[in-house]
């Protein structure tokens, strides 16, 4: 015991004496402090939970705990291998210290050091919550509970697990490299778990995460804000902790048992076999004369020196198992990223296009590259000193620059190996999926130019930092800290591309490549290259030759190394740097305006403060639009000119009104007849006109304009992706002057608003607020005639809504004239690209698909889907109102789809690339977009709460029902399940207040997620035909009518009219309240009775109503629920068929339901098709014991 304490005491004192421990303490304190105060490190954008609430504290601590692996590895490794390194081993091992006290003492020392680091983190978190600049309304009561919980459940166990596991590896292998490799492997496995678990695996993931972060996530998945603030997670935590602490303990015990106080490693490595055969030959070799090597030292000899050094450095990495772990991780993450490309709505996979992999090469590989750079820069740069070769090497006649160059190239080659692994893996995945259009040049440019260059920059930076550091561990920590600082620069407001030391991510589109980001990236490469050269020069000057030297000696050596060559190279590099830097500056700051994110936000805040009072003021609306749009794709220029007629549809006269113009447009002319321009703010795009005499109701006034939009050079960050060489796409409001005020521009993020001095965002007006029954968007309150003449370059098709009346050419330009054949909402869009056109028809509706020629695979499926949907929607609701339906593809830069009249604008990743084979060729997105022609097209909701139920909720419902008609309840059930999951998950991120469906404040998780579920549950209760009848009536009342516009209340009224008295309460529950169910099957008894089986199901049922903050109160339950018996075991897939299904009335509390069934059932499930929203699904089913 005494020797144990002695070893422990020494170890702790030793660790405390190392600068590394203090640096680690400081860094962890800062990391936690900055995270909890969200200064520079944002872990999760949930703005609602208290900063000092349980969830936030636990999240910060459990997330940052991972990073503790780095110092833990160092503590553990130095504790074990120090003796061998310092050749003290033999001294130590002859003392009468027993094996166990020795090992446990060392372990204890490392564990205590790790614990200190963990406590530093806790301290940083705690102190952070007291900072005065934090949002005070997010500070709740200060309690010790979260800290105690974090310490006992997260910090202590995790650090013990890490220490024990790594200690075991270090003890058995006595190798730093293997221990680091083990750490990588664990981090890797955890990352994979975190990113790629599906809904079915949550329980297993919760147990599999050794550090419990996922366990906590799973336990709190559906929690609401008050729960997150006050409660401590339970779930599988206890089981997980016990499992992993036990595992770690057993590893430790095993390592202690196998450890021998001896000098050789317990895990022997392969010995080189002695080459006996050559011995005889050797004696026969004639001894050549000592070679007269008047060393020539021509350039090729220098290259040979470089090559030999490079070979040695790369060989070191090849022999290191760490390399293979990282490469494996690269392959695994690539495979998992490959499999994650699914359509968000239908969860069907995309075709494995190369362009989809490119984001992974930037975001997915970056972490691995940084890990490699952090670890290998230290290993490679300090190799000579660490292995004792430094003096011999230093006395060799190589030019000083050879070392730093060889090291840098070696590190870059190692990173290249990772990139090549990722590429080969991706190609293999594509091949195995039967896809062979690899587009190798795209792989190569993305990996080795766009991303590779950035990774090389990081490598060079790592090497240079390491040459300055006195030893490997401090150097590694410095590189790690530097990378963190670089990643955080933008958070701190440093945004200019000349300063942030990175090559920013550029979105790639199959239609238009990198678009306007391309020239910027090339310019940046040309700029950072000479900078890297200068960095290398610095590294060269300061590279330590031989053993450690004082700073004075190093500086003296540096001065001696300044040769003519160095000066030439530096001056040349500096000159190129200045030249390219000036070119970039010219583009970003002179040709264009440079704005930081803060400045952008301030501009929006000013817009709201100065002009917010114009919101809702009456304005005349479009009655007729006649526009000419000339597009010059190669020049990225656009001209918009035209005239319109504005009509006062209000009940009183209008003295003055505002007109909004997208600020990016340059206005040459904007006139309103019989009015004077009273105020113009070009920068904000707002113009106010005063009528000479008030405009009476029903009277019109002309509007004329001439505007251009031009793009010159490239900008710092927000490229204009709307006007590009191939795939120009703009919404009408971007290039037309819109009467009325643009309130959509306001900032919605409350944290930003607070910082800028604005009140919290108001949200939509209340349901049925009479002031807004006549308002849609801007000042538009009526439909309008629409005619447009578009021109573009000769090889492109320009397209907008309406029928094509005429097409002609003039010189090198091509012209198109479109006109709508009935008045339509002035929400139009303009597109131009080298399209291929697919044509078909359905009854007398012309169907056209304008698509990129690379994306033709799904055209048949899309056309079939359109026809099936038109069948259903026309039959159930109303005839399709236009002569044609067009689907127009635009680049992925604008990732949303829009449904202007008679059209659906698809981004290239919607519909065109979804692999529909499992859904029998039916495209979810197409049904959704097409149904918008009814929901939102024929009738558009007034600008108030609940309007999104009328377009998105109903579109989702129609899609769900068409799928049900085509594929049956089980498939529909799976879709409903994913709706439920997205709804429930998103509730915790609600920043303001959750509302019932009827009052959704454009809250997408409610409109898209809960919306269809509500209608689905209702049609299950009262029948699909009744629901659809109500919707038909609704359309009949509001389609193509003028103000007042429909509200969600109107739909609910129609539903109440068709539903019987017994369903009124259900309608209130579904639409007007936030209701959650909780079903639980307690027991199932099966009694054979004759040739059938009596199945008794004992279940508990409860119903809760939640308020906007998530607080639940129990309310009485009385609802019909599906109960199903299955004969096959639960496969979780789409093809589960119940052998027997009944609908029974269920009330609050425990009850028994009896069912008779012919065959022996295997499992029972309540609400198997996800019709009712239930937060805990695991207890909804039970397997039946035989």
């Amino acid at each position: 015991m005494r020797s144990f304490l002695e070893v422990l005491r020494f170890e702790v004192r030793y660790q405390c004496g190392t600068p590394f421990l203090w640096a680690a303490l400081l860094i962890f304190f800062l990391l936690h402090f900055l995270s909890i105060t969200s200064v520079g490190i944002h872990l999760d954008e949930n703005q609602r939970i208290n900063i000092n609430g349980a969830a936030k504290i636990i999240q910060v601590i459990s997330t940052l705990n991972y990073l503790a692996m780095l110092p833990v590895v160092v503590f553990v490794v130095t504790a074990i291998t120090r003796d061998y390194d310092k050749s003290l081993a033999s001294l130590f091992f002859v003392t009468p210290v027993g094996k166990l006290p020795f090992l446990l003492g060392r372990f204890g020392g490392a564990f205590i050091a790790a614990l200190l680091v963990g406590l530093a983190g806790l301290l940083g978190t705690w102190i952070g919550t007291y900072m005065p600049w934090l949002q005070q309304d997010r500070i709740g009561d200060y309690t010790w509970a979260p800290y105690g919980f974090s310490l006992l459940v997260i910090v202590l166990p995790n650090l013990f697990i890490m220490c024990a596991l790594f200690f075991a590896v270090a003890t058995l292998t006595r190798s730093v490299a293997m221990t680091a490799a083990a750490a990588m492997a664990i981090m890797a496995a955890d990352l994979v778990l975190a990113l790629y678990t599906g809904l079915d695996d949550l329980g297993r993931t919760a147990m599999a995460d050794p550090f419990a972060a996922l366990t906590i996530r799973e336990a709190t998945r559906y929690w609401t804000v008050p729960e997150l603030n006050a409660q401590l997670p339970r779930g599988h935590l206890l089981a997980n902790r016990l499992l992993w602490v036990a595992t770690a303990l057993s590893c430790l015990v095993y390592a202690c048992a196998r450890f021998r106080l001896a000098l050789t490693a317990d895990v022997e490595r392969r010995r080189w076999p002695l080459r006996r055969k050559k011995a005889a030959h050797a004696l026969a070799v004639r001894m050549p004369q000592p070679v007269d090597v008047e060393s020539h030292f021509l350039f090729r000899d220098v290259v040979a020196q470089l090559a030999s050094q490079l070979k040695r450095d790369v060989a070191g990495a090849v022999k290191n198992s760490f390399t293979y772990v990282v490469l494996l991780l690269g392959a695994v993450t690539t495979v998992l990223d490959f499999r994650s490309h699914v359509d968000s709505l239908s969860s069907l996979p995309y075709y494995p296009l190369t362009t989809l992999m490119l984001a992974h090469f930037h975001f997915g590989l970056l972490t691995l590259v940084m890990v490699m750079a952090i670890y290998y820069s230290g290993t490679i740069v300090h190799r000579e000193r660490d292995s004792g070769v430094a003096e011999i090497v230093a006395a060799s006649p190589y030019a000083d620059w050879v070392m730093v160059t060889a090291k840098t190239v070696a590190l870059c080659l190692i990173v290249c190996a990772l990139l090549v692994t990722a590429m080969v893996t991706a190609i293999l995945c594509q091949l195995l999926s039967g896809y062979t259009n690899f587009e190798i040049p795209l792989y190569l440019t993305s990996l080795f130019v766009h991303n590779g260059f950035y990774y090389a920059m990081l490598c060079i930076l790592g090497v240079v930092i390491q040459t300055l550091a006195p030893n490997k561990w401090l150097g590694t920590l410095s590189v790690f800290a530097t990378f963190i600082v670089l990643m955080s620069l933008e958070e701190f407001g440093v945004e200019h591309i000349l300063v942030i030391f990175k090559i920013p991510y550029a979105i790639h589109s199959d239609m238009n490549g990198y678009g306007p980001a391309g020239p910027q990236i090339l310019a940046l490469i040309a700029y950072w290259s000479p900078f890297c050269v200068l960095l290398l020069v610095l590294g060269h000057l300061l590279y330590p030759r031989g053993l450690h030297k004082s700073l004075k000696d190093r500086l003296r050596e540096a001065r001696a190394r300044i040769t003519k060559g160095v000066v030439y190279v530096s001056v040349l590099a500096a000159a190129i740097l200045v030249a390219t830097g000036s070119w970039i500056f010219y583009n970003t700051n002179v040709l264009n305006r440079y704005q930081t994110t803060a400045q952008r936000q301030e501009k929006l805040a000013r817009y709201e403060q100065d002009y917010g009072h114009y919101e809702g003021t009456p304005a005349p609306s479009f009655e007729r639009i006649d526009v000419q749009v000339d597009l010059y794709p190669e020049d990225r220029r656009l001209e918009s000119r035209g005239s319109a007629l504005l009509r006062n549809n209000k009940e009183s006269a209008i003295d003055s009104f505002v007109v909004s113009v997208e600020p990016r447009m340059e206005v040459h002319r904007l006139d309103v007849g019989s009015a004077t321009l009273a105020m113009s703010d070009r920068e904000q795009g707002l113009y106010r006109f005063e009528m000479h005499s008030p405009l009476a109701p029903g009277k019109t006034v002309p509007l004329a304009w001439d505007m251009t939009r031009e793009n010159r050079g490239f900008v710092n960050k927000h490229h204009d992706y709307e006007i590009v060489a191939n795939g120009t796409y703009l919404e009408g409001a971007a290039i037309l002057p819109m009467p009325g005020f643009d309130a959509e521009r306001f900032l919605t993020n409350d944290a930003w608003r607070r910082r800028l001095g604005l009140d919290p965002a108001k949200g939509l007006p209340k349901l049925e607020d009479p002031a807004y029954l006549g308002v849609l968007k801007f000042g538009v309150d009526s439909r309008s005639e629409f005619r447009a003449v578009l021109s573009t370059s000769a090889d492109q098709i320009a397209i907008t809504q309406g029928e094509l009346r005429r097409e002609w050419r003039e010189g090198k330009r091509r012209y198109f004239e479109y006109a709508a054949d009935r008045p339509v909402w002035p929400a139009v869009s303009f597109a131009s690209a080298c399209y291929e056109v697919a044509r078909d028809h359905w009854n007398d509706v012309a169907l056209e698909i304008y698509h990129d020629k690379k994306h033709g695979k799904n055209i048949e499926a899309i056309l079939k889907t359109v026809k099936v949907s038109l069948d259903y929607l026309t039959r159930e609701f109303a005839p399709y109102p236009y002569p044609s339906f067009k689907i127009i593809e635009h680049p992925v830069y604008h990732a949303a789809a829009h449904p202007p009249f008679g059209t659906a604008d698809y981004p290239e990743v919607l519909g065109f690339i979804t692999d529909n084979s499992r859904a029998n060729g039916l495209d979810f997105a197409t049904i959704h977009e097409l149904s918008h022609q009814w929901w939102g097209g024929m009738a558009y909701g007034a600008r108030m709460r609940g309007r999104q139920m009328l377009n998105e909720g109903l579109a989702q419902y129609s899609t769900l029902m068409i799928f049900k008609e085509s594929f049956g309840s089980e498939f529909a059930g799976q879709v409903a399940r994913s709706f439920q999951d997205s709804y429930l998950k998103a509730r915790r991120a609600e920043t303001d207040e959750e509302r019932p469906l009827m009052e959704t404040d454009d809250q997408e998780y409610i409109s898209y997620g809960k919306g269809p579920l509500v209608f689905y549950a209702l049609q299950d209760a009262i029948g699909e035909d009744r629901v659809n009848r109500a919707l038909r009536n609704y359309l009949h009342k509001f389609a193509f009518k003028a103000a007042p516009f429909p509200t969600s209340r109107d739909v609910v009224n129609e539903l109440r009219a068709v539903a019987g008295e017994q369903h009124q309460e259900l309608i209130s529950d579904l639409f007007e309240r936030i209701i959650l169910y909780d079903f639980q099957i307690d027991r199932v008894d099966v009694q054979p009775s004759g040739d059938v089986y009596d199945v008794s199901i004992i279940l508990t049922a409860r119903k809760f109503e939640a308020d906007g903050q998530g607080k639940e109160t129990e309310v009485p339950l009385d609802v019909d629920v599906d109960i199903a018996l299955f004969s096959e075991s639960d496969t979780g897939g789409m093809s589960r068929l119940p052998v027997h299904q009944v609908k029974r009335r269920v009330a609050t509390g425990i009850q028994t339901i009896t069912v008779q069934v012919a065959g022996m059932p295997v499992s029972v499930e309540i609400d198997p098709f996800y019709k009712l929203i239930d937060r805990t699904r695991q207890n909804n089913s039970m397997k039946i014991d035989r």
Partner: protein
Amino acid sequence: MLSLSRVSKTYPGNVAALQDVDLEIPNGMFGLLGPNGAGKSTLMRTIATLQEPDEGAIHFDDIDVRKDKTALRRILGYLPQEFGAYPRTSAEAMLLHFAALKGIHGTQRKQVVEHLLVHTNLWNVRGRSVDKFSGGMKQRFGIAQALLGNPKLIIVDEPTAGLDPAERRRFQNLLAEVGEDRVVILSTHIVDDVADLCSTIAIMGQGKILKGGEPKKLIVEMNGRLWTKVVSKQDVERVRTDHTVLSTRFRSGSTEVRILADEMPDGATAAVPELEDVYFSVLIEHGLKDNLE
């Protein structure tokens, strides 16, 4: 010919590592003797261009070493006191790498390395990783790499510490072969190495050259002034106070004392001086070795 003139170096903390060192070293074996901390390694590293002196000049033939380090490195072979090798790398691979760094390329490289491996009797273990070598093998490896490129100046720093007698003998023979027409500087605190091999020596202490010359001549100078006396353990103290005791040796139960004196002390007999005696006397003269043991 290697010449040093007024070479000095002071470490931070005012530790004077080298003070005004003047040396002229011709071709052949040169021995540098001195106790630990005398500055031998500092001097070796300075000549080997690894360290920059604060003052002084170093010339080898017509190379100004301080100004043109690379020129000296081209003809230099250096075996440091402590060295290692890249882990899990064979002796052959290491030698090939060092040869590359020394500017030997192409087929020559392989030939030279093979020759040296045979010459140092490492041919049979050339595929074994150097970190698995025994002490003697490692030193032979060290001399092999120092011989790469046919150097004209070879610096060997404490090479035989830790070798068994057979290995030491072998090593000395290697060095003797090598030292014919180049400058070989052997720095050590083992007098026997220097006595057998070196044609010139210098004795160093506290950063200064205390005495230099040819070993034979230095021994002859001491002729007639060295005496031995056998005394009991209790009398050793008394003898020390009366005379200059160079060293004491235990011989089968009794103590033999070696005394430096111009006249024969009582009970002593004349002895033939050895280099070790010269060495100790120089150290004592400069107050660097206690008169007591």
